């Protein structure tokens, strides 16, 4: 290569422009995200509610099973499991679909010059709509197992915003990497599945931490290193009327900042390559 011309004079600027330009096209991804949901209503009576129902059935079954196994009151464990499932579905949806976000949209990427972020915003928006559907399960649960809710329940709003912000950078970063290295798609999906068990969704972290058995208590402390735990806690605690810990918020905020910073580095370097790779 001789006389290498600088292809991108302002790569940072372009990475930011991609995010901002995608945001300006909210009508497009807003419409597409809705359409993805409505697609599920078509030719089926309950549509996306099916996803909610199947999630609720799994959560209730696992709740009953683990309440028996651990000897915990159903009234304590079931709300814990249900809310955990609702949040986990969002997280795993963003990561699993994020790993294919550009691969799945190959046709659009090659035919229409839209910012890459459009596909990511559509994904996160769709997951938020699913989240809203699944939230019905929580509301129904409140009727059966009333929780000691206080005004702190409002903390769930910034918590969901943070969750969505993180879903966006994860999908963007993972999406770009998997477009280049297709092996990462199945790896990502296996890791997500594994993390379901490693994250306190069907088990209660604090019960293990206060276990009489010091070996268990010791091991439970390791769960703090699991980033998903902190995301779950900032949403689950307010929704179940429990006291909140500042450290979960701090960790989530730190992950948001660091994650976006890393994603911007990836965007700067590889954004323009995605249409070549898909």
């Amino acid at each position, binding site marked *: 290569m001789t006389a290498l011309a600088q292809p991108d004079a302002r790569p940072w600027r*372009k990475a930011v422009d991609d995010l901002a330009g995608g945001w300006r096209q909210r009508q*497009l991804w807003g419409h597409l995200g809705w359409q993805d949901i409505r697609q599920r209503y078509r030719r089926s009576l309950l549509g996306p509610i099916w996803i909610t129902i199947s999630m609720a059935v799994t959560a209730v079954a696992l709740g009953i099973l683990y309440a028996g196994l651990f000897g915990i009151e159903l009234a304590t464990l079931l709300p814990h499991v249900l809310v955990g499932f609702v949040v986990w579905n969002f997280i795993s949806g963003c990561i699993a679909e994020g790993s294919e976000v550009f691969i799945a949209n190959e046709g659009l990427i090659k035919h229409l010059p839209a910012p890459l972020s459009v596909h990511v915003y559509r994904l996160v928006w769709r997951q938020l709509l699913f989240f809203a559907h699944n939230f019905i399960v929580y509301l129904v649960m409140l009727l059966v197992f009333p929780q000691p809710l206080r005004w702190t329940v409002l903390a769930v709003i910034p918590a969901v915003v943070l969750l969505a912000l993180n879903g966006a950078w994860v999908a963007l970063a993972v999406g770009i990497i998997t477009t280049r290295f297709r092996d990462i798609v199945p790896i990502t999906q296996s890791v997500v599945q594994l993390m379901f068990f490693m994250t306190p969704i069907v088990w209660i972290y604090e019960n293990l931490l206060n276990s009489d058995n010091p070996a268990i208590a010791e091991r439970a402390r390791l769960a703090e290193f699991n980033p998903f735990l902190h995301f779950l806690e900032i949403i689950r605690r307010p929704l179940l009327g429990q006291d909140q810990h500042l450290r979960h918020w701090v960790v989530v905020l730190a992950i948001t900042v660091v994650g976006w910073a890393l994603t911007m580095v990836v965007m700067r370097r590889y954004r323009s390559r995605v*249409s070549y790779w898909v």
Partner: protein
Amino acid sequence: MSVSESTNGPVSITTKDACVDFPIFDARSRSLKKTVMGLVGGNIDSAAKVPVIAALRDVTLSLDHGARVGLVGHNGAGKSTLLRLLSGIYEPTRGVATIRGRVAPVFDLGVGMDPEISGLENIMVRGLFLGMTRKQMQERVDDIADFTELGDFLRMPLRTYSTGMRVRLALGVVTSIDPEILLLDEGIGAVDAAFLEKSKQRLVELVARSGLLVFASHSDEFLRELCDTAIWMEHGQIKQQGELDEVLRAYKGQHA
């Protein structure tokens, strides 16, 4: 993305020594394993290097408001890749491409169409993809419905349509927009003769509305109708650029 948002200023496309090189990842070179092994085992140059196809080389052109450019060349000469470079889908791997204005690319009539939703909904989605707003599309829906002559079928899911009906719908949407930069790839076929005549009229009007047109086609007749200048692509390079007739003569002359 080098595509700026809707600008009120004059539209233009300029490229300087723009190259588009495609990395060809076969199953082996695409995998992480190969890359990691390549790094660990040394011998990076031959093991980790990915074969590259130079689809476009040193493309330098400058198109301004009012340009009506035809694109000719053999299959595989780089016409479609050039259109994608000009639309901003591919950013040049070397060189520069600057695009001012909102681009409406019409490369494939089917892209962005969803078979499960109705024709009317597809009109909206396709319009949004082409950079229109919801409101603008709502205003145009009746006009498009008239043009397509699909009547009540517009309420049916797209999967019930025949190929020709899909083309009608797609053409109806595409020709209803107000593009600043219009990039047309050929492949507008599969409609009956009467409809073709009708869509030609709309196509001409669409081109008249657009600020800048680049049209890739094998049809001299269509090219003469829509363009005044032309670019002849060969082996990923611009072979000739100039008046339409002149370029066409040279291009055809080479065949004879």
